[in-house]
Structures are given as C-alpha cells and as structure tokens.
C-alpha cells in the first residue's frame, strides 16, 4: 500500500540571516505513514517538529531528500494539490480574525477551486458536513473572535476537514484546552479517524496524549528522528531522560496497556524560597 506521506532522508536548514529563529538543521529524517494511521511527533523545543510540519505542507522545501504524498513528490505538485491532500490545523487564528465560523470553514474549500470566485454547492455541502463533524453547526453565524478557545479549535479543525485531506496534521491540538476539552478533541480525532480513515499526524508536547491516541510515536531531538515505533517502544524512561534532559519515570496503570510518563521534579533547595544565594566576595 502506498504510504499517505513518506519522507526520505529529508534535510533542511533555515537561512540564518533571513529569520530571527535560531538557525538549525533538520537532518536525515525518514518515515512513512500508512493510510488510517494515527502518529504523534514528540520532542523538546527546537527539535524540528514545527519545521517538519512546514516541510510536509510545502511551506518550506527540503534542501536534500524528498517528501512524497501518496507516492508523488511534493515539490512537483501545485500548491492547491498539496492542500487537497494535506490539511494543517494550527493552534489558533490570528488575534481579531474577523470572519464567522461558516466563512472560516468555507475557506478550507479554496484548494478545491482556486480559480473560482464563489463557492459551489458541493463546497457548501462539504462545509456543512465538516461543521457537523466537529459540532459547531449551531455557531455557524458567530464571529470566531466571540468563541471560546475550545470552540475556535473545533472550528479550525472543521476548516481542515472541509479540505477533505488524506493527511490531517495538528499542531499542539490540546495546548490551549482545559482537561474536558482535551478529552473531547481526542475523542473527536479518534471518531474522524475511524469513520473516514483519514491519516492523522499530531505534534504535541503532551507525552501521555501521544501514548493514548497514537499507533506510532516519532521522537525528534536536535533535528533528527531518534526513535520511531509504538508508544511502548518510544516512551522509554532512559531514552526520554537523555532527550529531554530531566528525570522521567514511565509506568503502567493497571488495566491499561499504555505507558504513562511522569516528570520527576528535582528536590527543593533547602534554603527558603526567594532567598538569594550568598554573593561571592
């Protein structure tokens, strides 16, 4: 079966002068996702997770190696074709985004008719279905600025679903959400994956979320894929400690086969909090 997405020895480097981001490299990244798979990319800050998302959606182009979507080199596809195959769900919309829920979700239809001035009835039907799937139909006429963070997240997800992608990439989908909304988003992703067979790639700092939903976890560090495999294989205390540079314990709840990651906090200093260290003389 052709992988939905396949990265072969991908390398990338930001032009150091052109941005204020730290210039770092992505090097020798190879992996493939099968249709229907749910995978999560984890790793410390600046390990290259966001860069990987930008490469997959052709915001950036690799300096070496290739990325193939359903067997076709992404560099040879027109932008709209990439957008028909890969939908990216960002964490939020820019502050003060002026459009309503329905208008926003319809924006997801642009790749399906980039030359058209108006949406077609099919576009409207796809938007209605996407809003129903993420349960935002009742909010259709509301401006996004008036919604809660959880509701906005569902709208952005609906916009991505309206693209009818084969690969759904979510950047920190639970970062702004309280516990109940995190549970809801995870349930929603599972349902979408089960119903439509869409391949899901999550990018997350939440290792337990990764353990809960993923068939496979991709651990990145310093621009490289350190380990790829099922949660059991990747969420290993020794490995995580070396990558994240802090003490970590991994255990298993009775009745669950999923690993559970705990941060072990360093012991508190004995001096009272806020006391200054003695000044060197």
């Amino acid at each position: 079966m052709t992988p939905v997405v396949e990265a072969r020895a991908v390398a990338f480097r930001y032009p150091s002068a052109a941005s204020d981001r730290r210039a770092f490299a992505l090097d020798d990244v190879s992996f493939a996702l099968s249709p229907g798979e749910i995978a999560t990319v984890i790793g410390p800050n600046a390990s290259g997770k966001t860069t990987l998302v930008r490469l997959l959606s052709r915001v950036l182009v690799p300096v070496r190696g290739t990325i193939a979507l359903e067997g076709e080199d992404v560099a040879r596809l027109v932008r709209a074709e990439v957008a028909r195959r890969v939908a990216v769900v960002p964490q939020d919309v820019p502050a003060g985004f002026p459009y309503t829920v329905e208008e926003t979700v319809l924006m997801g239809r642009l790749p399906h008719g980039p030359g058209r001035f108006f949406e077609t009835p099919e576009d409207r039907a796809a938007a209605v279905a996407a809003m129903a799937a993420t349960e935002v139909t009742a909010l259709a006429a509301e401006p996004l600025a008036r919604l809660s963070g959880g509701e906005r997240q569902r709208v952005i997800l609906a916009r991505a679903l309206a693209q009818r992608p084969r690969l759904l990439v979510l950047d920190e989908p639970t970062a702004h959400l309280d516990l109940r909304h995190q549970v809801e988003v995870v349930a929603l992703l599972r349902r979408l994956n089960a119903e439509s067979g869409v391949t899901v790639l999550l990018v997350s700092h939440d290792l337990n979320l990764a353990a809960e939903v993923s068939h496979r976890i991709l651990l990145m560090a310093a621009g490289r894929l350190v380990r790829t495999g099922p949660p059991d294989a990747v969420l290993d205390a020794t490995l995580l400690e070396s990558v994240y540079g802090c003490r970590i314990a991994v255990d298993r709840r009775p009745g669950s086969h999923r690993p559970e990651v705990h941060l072990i906090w360093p012991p508190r200093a004995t001096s009272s909090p806020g006391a200054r260290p003695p000044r060197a003389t």
Partner: protein
Amino acid sequence: MTPRRLTLVLAGLGIALVAAAVAALFVGSAGVTPAQVLAVLTGRSPAEGVERVVVLELRLPRIAAAVLAGAALAVAGAGFQALTRNPLADPSVLGVSSGAAFGAVLGQLVGLGSTVMDSLGLASFAFVGALAAGVVVYLVASTAGGLPVHSLLLAGVIVGIFFSAAITVLISLIDVNRLGGVIFWLLGNLSPLPAAPLAVFASVAVAGGWLIVGRARQLNVLALGEEAALQLGVDATGLARRVFVGAALLTGTVVAFVGPIGFVGLIVPHALRMVLGPDNRMILPAAGLAGGVFLLLADTLARNVMAPSELSVGVITAFCGAPFFIYLMRSRTALVTRL
C-alpha cells in the same frame, strides 16, 4: 457569500451612483437652470449655448473623473488593508500617494501634457513613484515577524514626508507661471479632464481594479496568516505582489490625473465592512461603487459650499478623513481586530 447577495448590494450601490451622478449634473455655481440641463441632456438645447458647455464639457467630465478617482482610491485602500491585515492602511497614510505625486510632478516637469501618450506617460511616472514609495515603506516596516501596525504607519509618515520634501525641490524648479496649477493639483483637484486622459484614466483603473478584485477570495484566506494561507494553496508572495501592483496602479493613475486625494481608501472600505462584513469579494467591488459615490458627493460639496469660489475636493476628504482616522486609531475593536 452568495452571488445573489453580491448582485443585490452592487445593484443598490449602482443605482445610488447613477442617481448621485445625475443629481450632480444639475448642481453648480454657473447659472444653469434644471430645465436647461434637461434640455441639454435630451438634445433640445442650442448647439452653441453656454448651458451646453457647462453641462457637457465642465460638469460631465468632472463627474466622470470624481467617480473614477473615488472608485480607484477606495479599491486601492481596501486592497492595501487586506494585504497588510490592517484597517489603517490607505494610499495616503502609507506614503504611496506622496510617491505617486512626486512621480507625477516629475512627469509634469519634463513637459508631459494631456494628449493620450502624454497622459499615459504621466500615469507611468506616478505609478513608478507609487511603487517606489510602497516598496520603501514595506522594507522599512517589515520585520521577520511580519508587518507591525505601528512600524507600518510610522514608515508611511516618514516616506510621505521625504517625498513631500522632494516635491518641494521639484516645485522650486518650475517656472512661476505654472506654479499655481501644480499647487492646485497637489491639493487634490477635480478640474474637468479632456476625453483622452479620461479614457486612459478609466482603462488603467479597470486594469488595476481587476488585479485586486480577481484575488478577493485569496485575500480573505490571507487573514488566517501567511503560513495558513500557503497551506491552503495560496501563493502568498505572488498574491502580495499582484495586489500591491494593482493598488499602486490605481493610486498612481488617480494622483496623475486629479492629484493626491487622501482618506477615501480609509473611510469607504471601513464603512462598508461595518455594514456588509469582512468578505473581500463583497467589499472590493462594493468599494469601487461606494468610493465613486463618496468622492462625487464630496466634490459636489467642494464645488458649491463656497460658491462661486471652489474648494479642493482633497480638503473635504481630509476634513472627513482626519477625524475618522483618529476614531479608528482610538477604537479598540478596530485595532484589536487586525493587530
């Protein structure tokens, strides 16, 4: 947005535009009675009559110029606003008008007049000036993180001041007899244009408007941010170039033919957004028609408020625009909306 809603709004604005244009034919400082205007319009007036000259050679071309200039400025303003995601962007605020004015004065200095070729040349000078000013403002204001609103406004002011100073240098090179005309033009003045420049004006304005309005749906998506727009298949850089060239064409041609009239591109799109919502597929074409109505009304006011002497239409738009700009700056919703 549906085609039906767009058609309804544009039809309504179109009727308003025709009504305003017809009304403006009847109003003026010359003593021509409504009956005489009607006679001219229905072809029953004497061929050599004064009223014929007043209506067909003074008022009609002036109305056409006002409608064209208002339409072009409003569409350019709405285009700049969509591109910079900032409601304060407008050709005059961004210094683009000053750049165009510098180009146009330079064109006049080298002797370009009002034949078809000359007016094309004049428009080209103004277009290049507008482009240059816009590029400089962009380079000064842009940071790696984007285009912050305060840097953008500041850069616009600075570039505007620079080009005004450069214009002063050019003016001191102009001989005294032509000085009055240039200064009158610099205030933004809708003196009747001959048919040839009017035709050039109209064609360039249509071309510039098409460049912007044709990408209205892509401009909507740009509100999601540049990266999200790329991920929806929009070539953000190409879009920015195209819309920027379109807006510079519109600004340049207005400045070349009627002078730097300010604030139309600020007031009209904002008022439309308050009523019609943010969709650029609606706002851009509607701004074309509403801008025409607005500048026509402003010019009719300018012609009559101090009759028989005339105010420059730029004075009227600035008197409306400056308080409006302050209101936009102070209103938190407007700034939070786009920051």
